[in-house]
């Protein structure tokens, strides 16, 4: 009678929970998440606080301090079939369900099947390891020493909310698990840092895939749609990323092809210590050709394998760099990273690399929240970032330095009232190239001279730690240690000055530097940070005692605008060749040692084939170090030397034939001189001209030098120019004499009125070339300069005394919109 009462009582209680559950589910129907969320969720603490975690930066935000429980909620995961989270509800010792109101609703399980078959009462304990499968609608939960179980989550299924046993072989010391988005496999990292692949459909295939390089309690595990596993370590909040797609368990050794063949005993790591040898310290092979295959890690030490007289083999599933293998004759000791070892005697052959990938490798990914109790979940079929998310700041260096999210580049949560460099911070959905315009916090006060200290000013919005790296050897990566020039230096609000040491073995030239400001005193050049900012800079590593003179300045240009109808008047739209132009003169003491020319071809409204060149008056071409001369067009190094050797003054042919640089189209037959042709981009150039014989600065050319345009041979250049002698046609700045390559007979022809020291001007002083002291919106095709720039004539006729800023006052519809 008493028994009947208890059964009836239990039944009523069960029916009650089912009824409550039904109505709860009905009322929660509209509380399902609207979509598969990209953020991760983290439950922390003894009374279940729920946080949203941006895995990109590690930033966490408290979503709910009250989930409707006074106890823990753990082992939870997102169910893509109904858009709810499920986990283990400690308060009710059963399954819990969470919708977008973040409240836990108990989902009582029918555990009778597990109890009757395996004799396990599931409800007597709690489960802090769990997740919802991706390929089928089940919640899996695990506890070491008890088992792995699952519960059906499909209300239409006859087994709905009925628990089942997957296995009672529960040896993994894990704290969370996560399902891969495609394979149906779950993964977890144990406290020893071993990555486990958990096959929930055939648990005998569950295995350790190796050491990830980090140990601890990994209380949160997540997957993203690309198959990356993210695990968060409780002790320091570090989030690590593991690409499990590169870990293979298929044997790469075809045992059937081994010679001599294996005809003795063969053990796999699962056999070691083999059950048949349980309790012994030795494995004794037969007299045949034995084989021991170690595919994973064995948490034992001091065991021995003794081969007998055959051709015994040891097949190591990890790389030799992972194992430490020591030998004495045919006796081997294999030592694992945790110090455990295995002695193997009488081995005749070792085969390595039994796996395609030798070991899983975890990389630090982001600085997440620290916790003593937590569990993570996210929708594994979602990316970890939103394409429209502009709350993250990225670096800008080329991706060889790890810049993009996929490359685990540096990332910071943008907080415009928080911690950042300089006076502004902007977020971006992806790294900007080449430079983020909010990178304004670092000032290189001095040049970076090899073997000496350099000064940098760093402006911080508030207190934090600054970290910096410079690619001294120019190998395209930041070495985390040897190129770390500032490591966790304290900064206070305002300007902070630091000395950074440039090593003697640094390579001179242009390279990249990365600065990161954070509230963390330990930061790498990669990975996410929940606050701060990253700024990447192009820097130049100089030889000692370099002085640098810029014309017009180090970040501005003059614009050179040419008419190519000389010696006749043309339409004077001054857009036949338009070049942005800057010169840099490097000196050591009083001697010029190097020139640099850089800028852009902005436009070419010419039918003729023109080239653009610069003459270095007084520089013998034989004094140029051609071995180290560098010549780039559109960022690409050019194999042909631009240097002319046939004349006494060095001439650099920067653009030998501008017509070769662009492809005319139906609507844009010319280059950036017609309306609607803004999609054509300016073409950059840079030439570095080192001098093998330095020139006294009093004799060396400086400032503008002598830029000019010339005719490209073989294309004709008007009635005054003989075919195939077009190179002799040049147009220089007003009153600049031509080069020795110039055809002197052209002077004073037609409208030209050159005479004496007066060159390239008409009788009324009109030039065919202009130097405009700034970036410039050149006139549209056929638009005379005085119509595009109404102040030009006043400026010209007044000797520049009037309308001195003529070049900044234009008729918008008569100039090319450069889009800058």
């Amino acid at each position: 009678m008493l028994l009947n009462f208890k059964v009836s009582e239990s039944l009523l209680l069960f029916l009650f929970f089912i009824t409550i559950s039904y109505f709860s589910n009905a009322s929660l129907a509209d509380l399902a998440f609207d979509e598969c969320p990209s953020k991760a969720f983290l439950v922390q603490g003894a009374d279940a606080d729920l946080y949203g975690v941006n895995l990109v930066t590690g930033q966490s935000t408290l979503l709910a301090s009250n989930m409707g429980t006074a106890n823990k909620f753990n082992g939870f995961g997102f169910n893509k079939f109904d858009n709810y989270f499920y986990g283990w509800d400690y308060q009710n010792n059963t399954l819990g369900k969470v919708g977008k109101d973040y409240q836990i609703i108990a989902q009582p399980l029918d555990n009778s099947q597990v109890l009757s078959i395996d004799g396990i009462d599931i409800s007597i304990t709690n489960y802090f390891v769990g997740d919802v499968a991706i390929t089928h609608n089940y919640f899996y939960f695990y506890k070491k020493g008890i088992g792995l179980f699952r519960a059906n989550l499909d209300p239409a299924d006859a087994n709905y909310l009925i628990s089942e046993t997957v296995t009672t072989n529960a040896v993994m010391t894990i704290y969370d698990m996560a399902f891969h988005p495609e394979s149906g496999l779950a993964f977890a990292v144990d406290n020893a840092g071993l990555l486990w692949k958990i096959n929930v459909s055939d648990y005998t295939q569950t295995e350790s895939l190796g050491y990830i390089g980090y140990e601890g309690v990994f209380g949160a595990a997540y997957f993203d749609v690309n198959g990356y596993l993210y695990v968060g370590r409780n002790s320091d909040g570090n989030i690590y990323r593991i690409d499990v797609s590169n870990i293979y368990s298929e044997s790469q050794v075809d045992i059937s092809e081994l010679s001599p063949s294996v005809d003795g005993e063969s053990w796999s790591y699962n056999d070691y210590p083999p059950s048949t040898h349980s309790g012994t310290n030795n494995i004794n092979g037969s007299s045949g050709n034995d084989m021991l295959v170690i595919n994973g890690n064995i948490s034992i030490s001091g065991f021995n394998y003794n081969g007998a007289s055959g051709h015994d083999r040891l097949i190591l599933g990890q790389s030799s760099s992972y194992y430490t293998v020591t030998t004495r004759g045919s006796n081997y000791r294999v030592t694992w990273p945790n110090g455990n070892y295995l002695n193997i005697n009488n081995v005749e052959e070792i085969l390595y690399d039994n796996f395609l990938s030798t070991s899983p490798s975890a990389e630090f990914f982001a600085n997440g929240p620290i916790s003593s109790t937590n569990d993570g979940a996210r929708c594994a079929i979602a990316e970890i970032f939103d394409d429209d998310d502009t709350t993250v700041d990225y670096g800008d260096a080329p991706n060889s330095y790890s810049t993009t999210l996929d490359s685990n580049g540096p990332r910071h949560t943008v907080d415009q009232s928080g911690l950042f460099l300089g006076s502004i911070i902007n977020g971006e959905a992806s790294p900007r190239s080449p430079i983020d315009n909010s990178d304004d916090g670092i000032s290189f006060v001095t040049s970076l001279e090899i073997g000496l200290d350099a000064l940098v000013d760093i402006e911080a919005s508030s207190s934090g730690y600054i970290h910096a790296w410079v690619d001294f050897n120019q190998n395209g990566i930041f070495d985390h240690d040897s190129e770390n020039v500032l490591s966790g230096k304290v900064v206070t609000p305002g300007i902070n000055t630091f000395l950074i040491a440039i090593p003697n073995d640094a390579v001179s030239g242009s390279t990249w530097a990365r600065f990161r400001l954070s509230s963390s005193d330990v930061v790498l050049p990669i990975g996410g940070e929940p606050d701060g900012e990253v700024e990447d800079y192009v820097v130049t590593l100089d030889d000692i005692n370099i002085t640098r003179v810029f014309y017009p300045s180090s970040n501005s240009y003059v614009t050179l605008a040419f008419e190519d109808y000389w010696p006749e008047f043309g339409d004077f739209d001054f857009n036949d060749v338009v070049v942005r132009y800057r010169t840099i003169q490097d000196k050591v003491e009083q001697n010029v040692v190097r020139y640099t020319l850089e800028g852009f071809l902005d436009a070419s409204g010419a039918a003729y084939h023109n080239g653009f060149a610069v003459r270095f008056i007084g520089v013998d071409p034989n004094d140029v170090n051609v071995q180290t001369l560098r010549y780039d067009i559109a960022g690409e190094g050019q194999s042909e030397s631009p240097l002319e050797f046939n004349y006494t003054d060095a001439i650099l042919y920067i653009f030998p034939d501008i017509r070769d640089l662009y492809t005319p189209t139906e609507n844009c037959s010319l280059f950036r001189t017609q309306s609607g042709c803004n999609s054509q981009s300016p073409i950059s150039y840079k030439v570095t001209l080192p001098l093998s014989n330095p020139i006294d600065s009093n004799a060396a050319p400086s400032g503008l030098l002598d830029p000019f345009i010339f005719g490209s041979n073989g294309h004709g250049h008007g009635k005054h120019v003989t075919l195939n002698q077009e190179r002799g046609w040049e147009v220089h700045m007003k009153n600049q004499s031509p080069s020795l390559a110039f055809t002197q007979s052209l002077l004073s022809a037609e409208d030209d009125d050159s005479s004496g020291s007066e060159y390239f001007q008409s009788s009324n002083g009109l030039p065919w070339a202009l130097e405009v002291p700034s970036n410039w919106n050149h006139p549209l095709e056929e638009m005379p300069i005085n119509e595009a720039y109404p102040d030009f004539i006043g400026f010209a006729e007044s000797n520049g005394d009037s309308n001195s800023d003529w070049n900044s006052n234009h008729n918008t519809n008569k100039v090319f919109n450069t889009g800058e």
Partner: protein
Amino acid sequence: MKSFELIRIFIYILIVFIAGCSGSGEDDKENSVQGPSDIEISPLEDQQNIDQSEAVSQNLTSVQIAKDFELIKKFDLNILISNPISNGRAYFNLCHAKVSDSLTIDYENCVYRGGIPSSGIDELLTLTNQSLRLIAEIRLFNEQAQSLQKIWVFNPDSTTQTLTLP
């Protein structure tokens, strides 16, 4: 008769259209340039097809510009800088302000950067009218040291421009 009239009008329109296509040299540019291989112009063709002189603005042909005016205003600045410490490294920057008229130096926008030798700096710089106001600065290689700064402004009343520091 009517058909003849129509044909006559059509031919007239065609002539006007063709004439419109072959006007100034710049028009030739627009219509003849299809690609680099299409633009091979012999000197003879050049004379006929790229006659731009008619396109010159009458305002420009009548303008009177001094023969020696090169249509840009430039000047030379003599910088005379001495090292403020006798046996230590010092560095000199001559740069624009970050924002016009501000006192904050912009190290990204300089006209001169270099160490100061024991003999000092005596240099003649050619500058455009974009550099009428600059900030000169001496820095010591010391994280605690204050910088020595001076605002230099172009003097329109002087035929020579000089900057001396300190």
